């Protein structure tokens, strides 16, 4: 099993709905070490209140609540309120009826009580990972853009071109003239760039007009 980086949870706010007070407090006590904020409530009414005031990234809800039903509540949120927040359901029922409803609702996960905390954390991680990755990608794009702004932006363009045109075997068929027709760069600069890359084993010429990109070489710089 891949060890999941649970640190990513630190950036998120969790709304936890459970009608059993004991379980609510104990679970909250465990979860609050992992997440940014946990809002633990007993009823859907309180949950709605929290949702309207706070930024919530993920909802953990029991199916059977006092005077209410978690699935109905989620339906209400998605259909009526148009609030699309990823959800994890917990229940003591291994009932297929609930399972089917949950699938129809497109909930992200479904955990059977008694709650295994690791399972819960893993499923939180799985739910929140795309958001983290989205943030990471955005960050990297920003980094590249900033580097391009302060260095020779032509070289950055060439590297972008090379990465974008790699095939599945990390090979690229290209020539100086091809690159020069795409990007307005002087030939000496281009040759110099290629030389540097091949010295560091990042881009090695394997045949005529064919270069191989070695990803591992990047770590050894």
């Amino acid at each position, binding site marked *: 099993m891949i060890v999941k980086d649970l640190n990513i949870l630190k950036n998120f706010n969790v709304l936890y709905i459970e009608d*059993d007070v*004991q379980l609510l407090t*104990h679970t909250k006590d*465990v979860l609050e*070490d992992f997440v940014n904020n946990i809002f633990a409530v007993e009823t859907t009414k309180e949950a709605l209140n929290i949702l309207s005031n706070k930024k919530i990234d993920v909802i953990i809800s029991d199916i059977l609540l006092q*005077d209410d039903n978690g699935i109905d509540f989620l339906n209400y949120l998605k259909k009526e309120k148009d609030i699309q927040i990823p959800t994890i359901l917990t229940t003591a029922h291994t009932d297929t009826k609930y399972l089917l409803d949950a699938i129809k609702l497109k909930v992200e996960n479904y955990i059977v*009580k*008694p709650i*295994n*905390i690791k399972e819960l954390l893993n499923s939180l991680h799985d739910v929140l990972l795309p958001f983290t990755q989205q943030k990471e990608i955005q960050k990297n794009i920003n980094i590249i853009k900033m580097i391009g702004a302060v260095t020779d932006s032509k070289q950055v363009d060439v590297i972008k071109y090379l990465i974008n045109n790699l095939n599945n075997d990390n090979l690229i068929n290209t020539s100086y003239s091809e690159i020069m027709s795409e990007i307005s760069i002087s030939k000496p600069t281009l040759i110099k760039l290629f030389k540097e890359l091949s010295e560091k084993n990042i881009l090695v010429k394997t045949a005529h007009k064919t270069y191989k990109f070695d990803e591992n070489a990047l770590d050894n710089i």
Partner: protein
Amino acid sequence: MKSTNIIDFIDNITFKYKTYILIFIITGGMLSIIILSQISTYAIKNDYERLFEKRTKPLILLESLKDVYEINVLDTIYDIKNNNISFENGKEVLELAKNLSNNYWNQYKQNRNSEFENNFFLQIIKKLFIEKNYEYKNEVLLESLMTNIDKKMEHINNYINYFDLNSYNEVKYETNSIKIYITSLINYDLKVTIDEKRDTNRLFNYIFLFSILSIVFVFIFSILLSIIIINNFKKLHKLLELKVERKTKELMELNDNLEKRIEIEVKNSRKKDLIMFQQAKLASMGEMLNNIAHQWRQPLGSISMIIQSFQTKMEFGKLTPEFVDTKVKDALLLADNMSTTLDDFKNFFTPDNIKSKFSLKNCIEHSFELSKYVLEKYNIHHTIEMKKDIVIDGFYNGLSHVLLNLINNSKDALMDKDCCLVKEIRIVVIQARKKVILHFMDNGGGISDKILPKIFEPYYTTKYKSAGTGIGLYMSKQIIEKHMNGSIKCKNIKNPRPNCDNCKSTLFILEIPFQ
């Protein structure tokens, strides 16, 4: 041999036909007797008529003829001879006598010629019964007599026509001879009459014999058949007596067997009841286990969460003594609760065959406590209305069992109802003089009238795919009626609450004596 055969044959005919035969024989016999007697009387009457018409009249005529010759002829001749009367007068008298005699004779002949018409019917009968044998009938003799008389008459008439005193002797002689002939004819006629009389006698005898025979025949057959029919009756009677005896025996046996069978059946039904009790126990045990499972799930979840929290806190290095203290306290509290729950259910399953005094309120509340989880799950409220607590001397667990059954049924009725109405179970306890009346109501829509009479029958269930055993209410009835000497009834009522107009309610009425 033959007669016995006939009797056997008659014996074997069905009763109906025997009676028919009897009626036929009696009527036939009667008819034949009537006909024969009619024939005999007719024949006798006929005979008399004939004797008079055919025989007596001619005899009178012949006698008159004789007299004419005796008195008018002979005496007149004699008178003339002695000169007692004048010749002229005598001649006139003789003339008259001649006319008279002619007249009589002609009449007689006419009579003879016009043979008296014999009745056709009678003739047939006579032909059937007797062959005519006329001992005296002699046509030749008759013929000669007639011709002789004719001749003599002619002679006498001649003499009278040319009468003179010389012919006196001849007339006298002729007249005497004619008298002799007439006498012979009379005799002959008489004899023939005797013949006919004998015929009639014979016919009469035959008829008499036949009627006697038919009477005897009818008599014998009637008696025979009557005896046979009576025998038939006797046989029938005997058969019926036998049948009745057999049936009575059977009935007696059946009665004897019935007692035994009833005993066996009672034993069997006791066994069945025991088995049912067992099943009911198992069924409610299942329910209870379900309840325990539900009631344990939550604290278990919490406890497992507490244990895991130690682990995670350790990883983060946040495991402080204070944290451990609070968590352990919580965990112990939870475990304690679980243990209490277990005790509750355990008490429920210990059989209590000993009567004990207990608070009714406690019992009701305890029953609701045991099914708390299910009621909460389906969001069913319950209210208990009683003015003051009542102490009952009886079986605590039995009553609790009954209440749990009722609660469970209400839950089944209410669980599928839409959540817009208030689902509720109401218990109203009223204290009467010697008993407690407990009303148990739910607004689960009532019980359909088709089912209502059957709900207390064993193995009768309406629950889908036999989720029910059909024993719950039967057992409840047994417990209330047999063990507690009370009664349990059920009916549909209108919902007494104002908030729901059209949802029916089911009402169970339990009456439990204090003792």
